[in-house]
Each structure stands twice: as structure tokens, then as C-alpha cells.
């Protein structure tokens, strides 16, 4: 960071310029400049500083410049298109009625247990532009919800197992808090526990992709809220075997509150199976929780399983047999829609689908290779701007 500040100083630029002017050979001069100027200075006006402050409070997205080191920066492809929300949700207002040290009660009947809440690294804003595609790796306010199952050990849901059910639930809550795994955990009795503060990232989604139109979110930990159901599932389970009715009711009120609070588009409330990817083999679905039977309707959402999976049609990920077998026929519609989109794009471009897919995969790798540095810089910037 100290070096980066140095690179942005005007006296440093003058010094580099004067030294470069001593080099006659244009190739050597260019080579020297490229080594000496790894960071582009950005104009910081008073307005800009105010915008930065606003970003800390979740009002403005900060665009981080594209990668600019190594041979890759020859291909600078920033465009001026700003990020725009693709849809605006219309959710009835839900407000907080009561807030005590141990719990919060909301106007739609939701009660959130807050006694075990933990902090984690704050969300950082990070937006890349790849042509008209906005690639978001983090944003100060949540953009959506990813639903998970904990796939943890569970006891039979019977009255005779009451103590055991409670003991297992407590153990699970401590475990996910220790690991900062989710923002919310819904236990088997339908109690909603806040695990990680909403303002912070939680490690729930890992490598993941979700997108609507020309906006794609990658690695959703810093941009989506993670809501987990205490559950253990196997492929082919019916909904009633996966979760309890109390959990579904709680998920509906929690979703309603979060959508109201953050104005979340319904299309951005999806399951982990829909978003998870494995960059090592460019396969979709490293995790397959809620790959089938997520109760979208009961939770008050459209059936998002039918949405084309952005990982496929924007970045060329492959839905292999394992993934197809582990997920259900409802999600198969999303896979098919994405594959059809990808195929039509290839036809329009007069390319074989495989060539097209490879190009998309290359785009993903290129974008991801630019991210770690940017995330670190954005985190630092966010820290500096925190009150």
C-alpha cells in the first residue's frame, strides 16, 4: 500500500519522466516506464472523496480500475458504462418492532436470535467492467440471498428427541459462528439465528457465479447474504424430508424482511447449487445444496430454478453428469436455458459451441486473475473509510 501511494505521487511521476527522457531507445524507454508505473494515478476531487465516503455507507459502488500489471495490461478494456440494478423489487415494508440484546422482532412476525452474532471482515465494493458486462465481486449492501443446507448431523424430528435436537442445534450454531459460515441459520424448530453481521462478509458461497442480464456477481461472499437451513439431504429427498414446516415459515419471513430492508430483486434469491462453481475443472456445482425442491413459492419467490445459469452462458462452465444427477428436474430447466443461450450466441457468431465456450472460460479466468489484488486494495480502502 505504501508503494501504491508512492506510485500515485506527482513528484514520483516527474522523477520517472525525467529518467525516462534519458533513455533514447523507444523500446527500452517503454520497458522502463512500464516497470516504473505499475499503478495509474486517479484524479481525486472533493466530490470523489465524498463519493468514497458514501460508498462506505453503502450508497455508491466504487469502480476499481482493471488489471494493469504484467503483459495483460496491454489489453485495457475499461468502459464507462456504470453498473445499474437490473430489476427493482417490490416487497411490502417490514420494520423492526423490538430490539433487545438477545433478539429482534419484526413487523411480519419474524424473530431473530442475536445473542451469538459474530463479526467478520467487512464487505468490500469491487466492480469490474468487461465490456458491457459488470462483474461484481463485492458490494457494500447485499445484492441477494443464497440459500444453503448445513448438511450437518441431525437427530430425528420427534418430541422424544427434544433435548438431543436442541443440543445438536446449539453445537451447529457455535460451529457456523466460529467458521463465519453464514449470515443466518434457521434451526429445525424454525428459530432464526443471526450468525455473522449483515454488514460483513460470510464464507458461505466460495467460488460462485450468479447473474442477471449484463450484471454478474462472482464469489458471492461479499455480495450475497447466506441463509442456511439446518438439514441433511440426499438426492431425491422430498421437501418434507429435507426441512421442517417451521423452517419454511421462518425462511419466508426472513426473506421478506431482507428483501424489504435491502430492496433485493427476487431473481437474486437463489440456491447454492445454482451458483456454486468449480474453477479447477470449469464445472458448475462444486456444492449442490438445494439443487432440488427448494420451496421458492412457499418462501414468496418466483421459481428461480428456471433462470438460465450465468456461470454457463457468461463464463462457459459445464454442467456435467454428476451435477445433473445431484440436482433435480426443476434446476435442469435453468441448465437447458443457459445452454440454449450459449448455443445461440455461438451460432450468431458463426462459431462452434466448444470454441465459444472456451472463449467464455478464458474471459472468466482473465477476470478472476484480476480480482485478488483488487479485493485487497478495496478492503484496505474500505478500512480507511470506516468511521
Amino acid at each position, binding site marked *: 500500500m505504501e508503494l501504491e501511494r508512492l506510485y500515485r505521487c506527482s513528484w514520483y511521476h516527474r522523477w520517472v519522466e525525467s529518467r525516462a527522457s534519458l533513455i533514447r531507445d523507444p*523500446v527500452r524507454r517503454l520497458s522502463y516506464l512500464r516497470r516504473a508505473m505499475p499503478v495509474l494515478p486517479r484524479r481525486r476531487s472533493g466530490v470523489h472523496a465524498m463519493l468514497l465516503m458514501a460508498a462506505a455507507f453503502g450508497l455508491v459502488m466504487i469502480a476499481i480500475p482493471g488489471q494493469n500489471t504484467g503483459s495483460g495490461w496491454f489489453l485495457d478494456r475499461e468502459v464507462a458504462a456504470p453498473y445499474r440494478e437490473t430489476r427493482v423489487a417490490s416487497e411490502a415494508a417490514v420494520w423492526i418492532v423490538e430490539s433487545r440484546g438477545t433478539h429482534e422482532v419484526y413487523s411480519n412476525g419474524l424473530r431473530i436470535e442475536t445473542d451469538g452474532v459474530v463479526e467478520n471482515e467487512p464487505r468490500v465494493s469491487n466492480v469490474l467492467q468487461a465490456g458491457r458486462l459488470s462483474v461484481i465481486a463485492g458490494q457494500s449492501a447485499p445484492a441477494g440471498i443464497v440459500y444453503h443446507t448445513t448438511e450437518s448431523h441431525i437427530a430425528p424430528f420427534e418430541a422424544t428427541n427434544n433435548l438431543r435436537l436442541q443440543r445438536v442445534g446449539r453445537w451447529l450454531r457455535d460451529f457456523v459462528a466460529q467458521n463465519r459460515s453464514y449470515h443466518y441459520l434457521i434451526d429445525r424448530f424454525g428459530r432464526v439465528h443471526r450468525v455473522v453481521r449483515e454488514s460483513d462478509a460470510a464464507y458461505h458461497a466460495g467460488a460462485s457465479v450468479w447473474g442477471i442480464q449484463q450484471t454478474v456477481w462472482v464469489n458471492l461472499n461479499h455480495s450475497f447474504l447466506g441463509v442456511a437451513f439446518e438439514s441433511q439431504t440426499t438426492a431425491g429427498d422430498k421437501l418434507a424430508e429435507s426441512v421442517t414446516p417451521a423452517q419454511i415459515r421462518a425462511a419466508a419471513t426472513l426473506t421478506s424482511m431482507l428483501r424489504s430492508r435491502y430492496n433485493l430483486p427476487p431473481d437474486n434469491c437463489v440456491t447454492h447449487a445454482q451458483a456454486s462453481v468449480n474453477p479447477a475443472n470449469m464445472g458448475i456445482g462444486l456444492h449442490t445444496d438445494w439443487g432440488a425442491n427448494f420451496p421458492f413459492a412457499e418462501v414468496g419467490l418466483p421459481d428461480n430454478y428456471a433462470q438460465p445459469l450465468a456461470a454457463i452462458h457468461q463464463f462457459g462452465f459445464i454442467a456435467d453428469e454428476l451435477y445433473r444427477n445431484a440436482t433435480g428436474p426443476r434446476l435442469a430447466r435453468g441448465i437447458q436455458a443457459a445452454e440454449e443461450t450459449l448455443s445461440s450466441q455461438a451460432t450468431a457468431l458463426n462459431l462452434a459451441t466448444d470454441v465459444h465456450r472456451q472463449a467464455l472460460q478464458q474471459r472468466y479466468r482473465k477476470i478472476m486473475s484480476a480480482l485478488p489484488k483488487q479485493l485487497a486494495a478495496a478492503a484496505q480502502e474500505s478500512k480507511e473509510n470506516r468511521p
Partner: protein
Amino acid sequence: MKAKPETQAALGLDVGTSRIVLASQEDETFKFDTQLNAFVCVPFSRMTEKALTREGVPFARNGSDLLVHGNEAPRFADLLNSETRRPMTQGVLNPAEPESVPVMRQIVEAMTSSFRDNRPKLCFTVPAWPLAANGVNEEGLTYHEATLRQIFAELDYEVLGINEGLAVIYSELEDTNFTGIGISCGGGLCNVALSYLSMPAMSFSIPKAGDYIDSSAASVTGDLANRVRLAKEERFHFNGHFVDKLQQVLTVYYDDMINGLLTAMREAFSNPKRMPKLSKPIPLVLSGGTASPKGFRDRFEKLLRATDFPIQISEVRLARDPHTATARGALIAALTEMQ
């Protein structure tokens, strides 16, 4: 005994909609080879094939056709009274042309065949993303780049891409330590880049360029766009005198293109978030075949000075050789990578 390593060659390739220009270095001098990025289909016969071989005309057999490509294509098109076919349109591979990829491969292979030993480093130009969705196929840009990379990789080159406008800056603005604006006015696109001490600060493209002028003028004069292009390149002067209708029509559409370019630049450079802090006026350099007619620089500067431009421009230059500047910049980038 340890063998002496052979030196790796560096090549700069300007892959334009209208022309492909190859830049290479021999001793300390830069050399250029230019081929039209076009082809025509000639019906196959053994006699035609022999005649083409005898004349040294580059061609490829494609089923019942012979594809004559490069500089010879317009001559054959004129003989057949047809338009040449173009592997590229608007700066990217032509999605409507089924032979685009094989023809591109043929042209590049023919141009670079003498450099292919010892895995040369090849830097090729790539258009910038359009400033707005104004007719440019944005997805096409990704596939254009990916497909070209694939072709070059198959020909065993070490491949590197460079933005077209940035290549112009690397070619022409060493005296300002590569700070300034580079514009490549090509056939399909006008590419603009702003660089600060060699670092790309902003780049974009607009789809109004040479082809737009040719096709618009052709629609007014009733001529073939191909012939308008030839007439434009051979005798068009930007001097305000209209010796014939074509001259007058070309002037109108050139003005339209320049105005479109200036409007886009004003819009792009007015965004302070994207701009580096510039302490002094910077130069602007024009290159590309569309910028080469006499009087173009003067006309551009006149229209530029008449607008409320958000950046102070110290001077408007025409590249030393507008046709080869981009390839030269790409070669410099390739050589820099070898430092």
C-alpha cells in the same frame, strides 16, 4: 557443448478490417508488409489454378472454389464485376462470412511464413470495446480476440494482444514518454486510447470509420463501395473544393465521421473518475488508412478546436506513416515484452 541460443523474433500485426499490416525488425530498422484483408471466390479449374500459381497470386482451394486473398483480391473482383468478400467487419471477424476464419488464417500464415522458426513473439492489435451499444457486436470482440489467439497459437507463436489506440501511442509518442491520445481510424472502427506515461487510462471504439464513409458514399453515387474506396484512396483531398460529386459526398461523410468521433471523445473524457490527473496539455496522434487523405489532420484539428474539448491538446499530429503506425506500435510492445 552448449548450443548458442537463436534469437527470438518479434512481430507486430495490425489486424484491421481493411488491411493486415505486419511489422518486423531487421537489424535496427522496422519493415512492413501490407495485405488487403479481403478475398474473392474464383470457380476452380486446373487452368486457373496453374495460372495463379505461375503468377504468384496467393490463393487457397476451397471445394469447388479458389479463394484469392490479399492484395490481388480487388483485381479479381473487378474482373468478375463483384465485390470483394471481407473476413472482418466493424473491427471484428465477420459473423456473416463463413470463410472468415480460414481466410484470416491463410493471409496471416502467408505473411508470417518466413518468421516461423524459433517461436516468434507476436503482438496483434485488438479493438477496444465500444463506448456505447451503437451497432458494434460486443460479444464479437471477445470471440474475435479468442479466435485470433487460437489461430496464432496453432501457428506456434507466442501471442500477446494490444489495444489498437495504445499501439498508435507506442509508435508515435515516445517524445512525450507515451503520454497522449492515440486514434486509429481504420476501416470498421475508430479506436481511441488515452495513455499516461505508457499506462492505458482509457480506450474505446466507435463504429463509424472508413467502411461507413465508403458505403454511405456508394449509396449516394450508386457506385460499388469497393470502387468508392479505391477512388477515395487514390484521389480524395480534404481541401474544400468539390471537383466532382464523389469528392463532395466523401467530404460530407468524412465530416460526419469526425464529428461522431469528437462527440464520443468528449463524452468519454468528461468522466473524471476515469481520467488521470494531467498537469499539461497532451498531444493527439491520428493514424490509419482513413486518416491518410491529404487535409484530414487539418480538418480534424479545425473541428476539434471548435468544440469544447475537456482535455487540453498541445498538438494534433498525423502518424509518420498512418498505414503502418499501429503495426509498428504492436512490434514495439512485442519487443518490450522481450526486454
